[in-house]
């Protein structure tokens, strides 16, 4: 069997593990993995363009608050609110992209950082709408085709479906001409543009998709947790996404997937050693950067040829 097939089979089995363990806490961690994996994809997509966007958690927050508020305040059916959350996330990226994406390198990082902070402040200070730091309560559970998603494992399945969908779409893009165009833009923008590539339009398109994915992730998170505060959408969220992409590897879409599976449960596993949690986390990150520079995906490649 090819190595890549083995990996997919292993991932499929891994996805079923929560049912074997039958533990609600395990389901919770698994659900968080399926929410953070698309987030990591959304950052990974930007990294493919050679741009490190610190704004991804902000898009997630926009999707989360939009989905929650649209269903609570306007009485929108929850699936429609979820979709709108994604669309609003995408629209925010579409609106800011043409300005942001002309900026490169560290300036882009700072710009998206500032944007993220502005969005965070809005969540925090617009208390009449978002509840501010005391949070937004009473978010309804998601209802799909008359079926109310009340259990943790319902959201796990939903997250899993969304993750697989994102994976297939992004994998398809990566393997298609669009993948080649984006790679070419990142590798040699001057050459690409001389042939006629509309660099900014392609970047904005990818940014919009990343904003949409982050927005949907946020919506799923909001309906799953049932409570929102600004905290998960701040700078720390970006650091986690960078860590996931770095540990997993940025070369392929499999990287952020593997990274999320390893990194998201880490704080939970380290919970016993609470005082040392951040320390161990940091040591793990350093070790992975030093010893597996290309990320987890490269391990399979090194031994088995091309992954």
């Amino acid at each position, binding site marked *: 069997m090819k190595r890549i097939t083995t990996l997919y089979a292993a991932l499929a089995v891994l996805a079923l593990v929560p049912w074997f363990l039958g533990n609600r806490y395990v389901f919770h961690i698994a659900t968080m993995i399926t929410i953070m994996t698309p987030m990591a994809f959304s950052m990974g997509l930007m990294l493919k363009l050679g741009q490190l966007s610190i704004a991804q958690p902000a898009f997630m927050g926009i999707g989360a608050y939009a989905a929650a508020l649209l269903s609570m305040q306007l009485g929108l059916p929850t699936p429609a609110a979820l979709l709108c959350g994604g669309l609003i996330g995408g629209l925010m990226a579409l609106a800011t992209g043409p300005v942001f994406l002309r900026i490169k390198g560290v300036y882009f990082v700072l710009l998206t950082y500032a944007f993220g902070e502005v969005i965070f402040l809005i969540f925090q200070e617009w208390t009449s709408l978002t509840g501010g730091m005391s949070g937004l309560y009473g978010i309804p559970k998601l209802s799909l085709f008359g079926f109310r998603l009340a259990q943790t494992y319902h959201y796990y399945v939903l997250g899993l479906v969304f993750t697989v969908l994102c994976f297939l779409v992004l994998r398809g893009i990566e393997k298609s001409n*669009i993948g*080649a165009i984006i790679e070419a833009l990142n590798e*040699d923008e*001057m*050459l690409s543009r*001389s042939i*006629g590539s*509309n*660099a900014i*339009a392609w970047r904005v398109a990818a940014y919009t998709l990343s904003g949409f994915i982050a927005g949907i992730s946020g919506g799923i998170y909001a309906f799953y947790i049932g409570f929102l505060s600004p905290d998960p959408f701040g700078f720390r969220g970006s650091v986690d996404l960078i860590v996931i992409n770095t540990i997993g590897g940025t070369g392929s879409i499999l990287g952020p997937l593997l990274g999320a599976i390893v990194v998201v449960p880490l704080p939970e596993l380290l919970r016993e050693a609470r005082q040392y949690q951040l320390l161990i986390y940091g040591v793990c990150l350093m070790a992975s950067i030093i010893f597996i520079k290309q990320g987890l995906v490269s391990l399979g490649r090194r031994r088995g040829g091309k992954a």
Partner: protein
Amino acid sequence: MTRVLDVQGLTKRFGGLTAVSDISFSVEKGEIFGIIGPNGAGKTTLFNVIAGHYKPTAGRVAFAGIDITAHSSDEIGRRGIARTFQAVHLFKQETVRENLRRAEVIARLNHPFALFSKSKPNGEVELEDVARFVGLGALLDVVAGGLAYGHQKILGIGMAMMVSPKLILMDEPAAGLNPSEKREASTLVRRLRDERGISILIVEHDMPLVMNICDRILVVNQGKRICLGTPDVIKADEKVIDAYLGENYEFA
């Protein structure tokens, strides 16, 4: 004859320095036009203004009668003006075939919206045709970074051809080539015009090559136009000999 490229009064200043000063010329359809000048004469700046990398301080550039002054480099590429680079620009990790394929794909899908249009791929046939035309037919599956330097430069011309241009701007096509590679490059440039009807603008350092293949030549020095005419006119021009070539320069 129709004018493919028309440059009028082009001026480019960087702060106090005038790199290009009031330059006018035009390239006719089916012409190989050369721009020469000593180092620092403003050739490259002139090239970069035409190719859309710099906005001119004054003047105008028109392509096939349409004003393209200060258009960005990708807009100019989409209009049908391809270019090659002085230093080689290729996707070096990829094969010759993939480089040519990418050029075609990038040109066809130049904007995300192009995904929804019904433009169909030109396919393998044209790709192999171009590869044979430039003489890389046998090297299609070689990784571009592993090609000889001369072949890398020629691949750059092949990639420019994949976008079906009406005009190709060449930035020092002979730079870094050995004498036999230079001869091959010269032949290729001529065949591009003769067999494909592509007009060509060359900015070049190599005097014999320019004299050999160009129909008309523009000589610039210190950003100004010194002389414009056929190679014979250039060879005989006093100002060119004084300012640029030196009294003892021998023409090849």
